[in-house]
Structures are given as C-alpha cells and as structure tokens.
C-alpha cells in the first residue's frame, strides 16, 4: 500500500499523465501551467514517459498537433491556461465536433486586458459552448484521479470526446499537497488502451473534416449534442468504477451539509474547500447553511442540480468569472435557467468574486452568506453583486 506523497499539484498531474502512458504531448508553456509541461518534458527526456513531446510554437499549434495525433489513434494530453486557451479557441471547437478524444488540463487563469497571470474562471467561461466534457477539481488528489478518469471517459467508445480538467491557477496548480498515487498495474487495469475506431490509417482510408452545406449542417450539430448529453452516463459509470477500484468516489454534484440546509452556497473549484470550512464555522454558530460543489460543468448536470437544491430557500452562487453586460455570474445564470421550470425552487442570488487571483477568505464567505440572505429577503436592483471590490 503506497503512502501519500507531498508534491506540487502541477507536477502530480504530469505524473498522472505518465501513469496513463500517454503517447503524445503537444504543449506551449503559459503561466500558471508551466510546471505541468516542464515536468512532462523531464519525464520524456528521462525515458520515464515513452511519448512524443512536441514543443510547438503556439497554443493554436498545440491543439492542432493534438488533433492530428488523436486522429491517428494516439493517447493525447496537453495543458494550457488563460490566453493560451483563447489562442486555441477555434481549434477546441474542432476537437469536439470531430470527436477526437484527448485530455487537456487547464490551470484557470484570468484574461487580459489588463494582463493577469493569476487565477479565475474567465478562461473556462469563454469555452462554455465548445462541446468538450468539462470538470472541476478542488485539490491535488482530485486532480490526479480525474486526469486518469478523463482519459478513460474521452476514449470510451460511447463518448469519443475531448475532456478538460479545470484546476485553479496558482491556488491549486502551485500548491504542494499530499497525494496518493495509484500503482501502475492498477492504472493499467482501470485504463484500457485507446482504440479510436477510425484512425488515419492507409489500411482503411477515411476522410475527416468534410465541409457541410446548410442542407446537412444542422444534422451534424444535433448528432453532436445528443452525443455529449449521452456522455453523462459514461462519466458517472467511470467515476463509480474508479471509486470501486481506488476508494475515492466522484459525482457531478457533491453536497456538503446540503441536504437539510436552508441556505446553500454553490461554488466550483478550489474555493469550495474554503467554503466548506466557512460552512463548518457558520453551522457551529447555529446557521442552517450548506454547500453545493459543482464538479461536472459540461454536460451540465440539470437533474443533479435540481435535486441538490430543492429543499433550500436561498441559493447563493459564487462565480469567479464575469459576463460583461450580461447576467454577471455565468454559473449562476445557468443554475437559474436549470431551476426556472421547477415548481419549488430557492431564491437564487449571484455573487462574482475571486477575479484575477483575488482570494475569498473564510470571513469573505461568511459575509457573502449574510449579504446573500439579505438580498434574498429584500431583493436588489442589480443582477449580481461583485464581492470584495474597493469602492
């Protein structure tokens, strides 16, 4: 039985990719993802990871090289953050619409301008509609576990979709955490070899990327939507089997004292950990509060969200991204939309905070809960509240 290792989460992700025996890594460095790709380069150079490492000249080429490698049937990994995700924007659409399995770790980072290398979810929100499976991890153990799950989900014959694993830039990527690594033999058992059904192969020539005139384009998009929606079943199944094999279970929505709480907080990513501590403290003070942690972002778990919040009176959603001129908090707007048709639903309040690396402390979450309850009571002229901004 292995021991937990104290290791930087970025480096641990590299080790997870090594355990997964990836074939091709094509990546471009960008803060705060650099330690992931540096460690992968070391692993390849030392021979510990038998893979092709392509030090491409930009993120657009990184994702493009990943397309080519995945189309050839290789197991593919890359990582990016912030501006890098933006630069590969048009390419990520192609990965999902062409159904090319791959795994990408995104060390979530704020977007320019002004330049910010620090963490928030604005890069995530720019790729909401691209058609990738997307999940959030809150700590190092989750990061390692879900990189392994991501390969299995992506390459599942019923799915065949690329998967993004989101981790908070700096807040998680650069933390040293205690992580238990599975044994190679265990991973080999859990992760079958990639058997992409239509690789580019002279034995069976295929044409990939034909263009679609209006008469058929809509059909291709319906097929794409049906497929990503159906993937949720395979995702849940994978997490169940991972839990059975390794003892750690994951699900699309995870609650923390949420079943009987009158007031619920909803967070994504590592702020959930601070929020959980804040919940403990507030409950200790007698408040009826709980936390809903959204893990599976795409496909959006409508059923699980409705189930998780149905008994609450107030739901306070804390977003780490801002949709300018729009609903404010993107996650909140999606949650609201999920609850709109429910006969019984909580009052939903939107907070946006933690932008560009700004932390939200224990006290901060307490303030958010108090202020959120006030707004639920009295209403507000504003669509959302920005938290922690100096006026």
């Amino acid at each position: 039985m292995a021991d937990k290792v104290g290791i930087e989460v970025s480096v641990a992700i590299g080790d997870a990719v090594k355990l997964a025996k990836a074939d091709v890594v094509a990546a471009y460095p960008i803060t705060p993802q650099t330690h992931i790709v540096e460690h992968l380069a070391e692993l390849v150079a030392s021979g510990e990871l038998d893979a092709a490492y392509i030090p491409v000249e930009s993120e657009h080429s990184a994702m493009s090289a990943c397309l080519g490698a995945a189309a050839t049937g290789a197991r593919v990994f890359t990582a990016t953050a912030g501006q890098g995700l933006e630069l590969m924007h048009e390419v990520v659409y192609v990965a999902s619409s062409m159904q090319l399995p791959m795994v990408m770790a995104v060390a979530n980072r704020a977007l320019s301008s002004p330049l910010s290398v620090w963490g928030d979810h604005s890069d995530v929100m720019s790729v909401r509609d691209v058609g990738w499976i997307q999940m959030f991890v809150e700590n190092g153990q989750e990061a390692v576990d879900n990189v392994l799950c991501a390969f299995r989900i992506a390459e599942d014959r019923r799915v065949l979709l690329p998967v993004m694993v989101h981790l908070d830039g700096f807040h998680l990527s650069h933390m040293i955490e205690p992580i238990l690594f599975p044994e190679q033999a265990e991973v080999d058992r859990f992760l079958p070899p990639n058997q992409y059904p239509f690789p580019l192969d002279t034995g069976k020539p295929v044409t990939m990327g034909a263009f679609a005139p209006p008469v058929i384009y809509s059909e291709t998009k319906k097929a794409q939507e049906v497929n990503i929606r159906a993937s949720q079943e395979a995702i849940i199944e994978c997490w169940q089997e991972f839990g059975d094999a390794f003892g750690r279970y994951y699900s699309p929505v995870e609650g923390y004292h949420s079943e009987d709480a009158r007031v619920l907080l909803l967070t994504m990513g590592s702020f959930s950990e601070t929020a959980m501590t804040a919940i403990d403290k507030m409950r200790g003070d007698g408040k009826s509060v709980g936390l809903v942690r959204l893990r599976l972002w795409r496909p959006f778990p409508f059923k699980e969200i409705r189930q998780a919040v149905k008994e609450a009176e107030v739901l306070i959603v804390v977003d780490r991204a801002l949709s300018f001129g729009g609903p404010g908090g993107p996650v909140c707007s999606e949650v609201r939309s999920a609850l709109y048709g429910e006969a019984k639903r909580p009052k939903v309040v939107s907070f946006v905070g933690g932008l560009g690396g700004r932390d939200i402390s224990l006290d901060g979450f307490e303030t958010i809960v108090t202020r959120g309850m006030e707004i639920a009571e009295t209403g507000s002229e504003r669509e959302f509240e920005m938290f922690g901004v100096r006026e």
Partner: protein
Amino acid sequence: MTKPENMMTWKDLEIGSIVTEPGNASQYQTGAWRSQRPIHDFTKCIKCGLCSIFCPEGCIGQNAEGYFEADLFYCKGCGICARECWTRAIKMVEEEE
C-alpha cells in the same frame, strides 16, 4: 450508393461526420457542367497519353483499341486536351442539348 445529403438524418452520420467511403465523390456527374465537349479523330491519335496527363479531372483513359478518350460522365469541357494534343486529334465543339 451514398445516401444523398438532403435525405440524411442525424443518425446516418458517422462519428465526427467522418466519411468512410474513399472516393465516393466519383458518383457526382461533373459532365453535366460542360458547354463544350471534346471530339476525337483517332486516325491522328498516336496513343502518347499526354492528354490523360494534363486532364485536371483525370477522366481520360484508353478505349478498347487503346486510343485515349475522355469519359463524358466527368468531362467538364475545359479544352486543355484539345489545346495540348500535338497531333491535333482532339477538337472542342459546342455541347448541344
């Protein structure tokens, strides 16, 4: 025969809209485009094959006697073969409908 696209449902599509029948575009009759057609005087044809090299469609092949002739199912009537044939065995004439 490939199902025509205006009859395909979303279920007919392969994953990622991959096309798995190599070269099935050969079902498309590009010959319907032309306004001129090549006519051949085989008494002048020396069977060199240069016309078949220069045809952008790749639709010129040898008939039973070995003379080079355009496949009118594909021939778009560009006239390159007539222009390049050095014995002037090919002439372009107006397509009559």
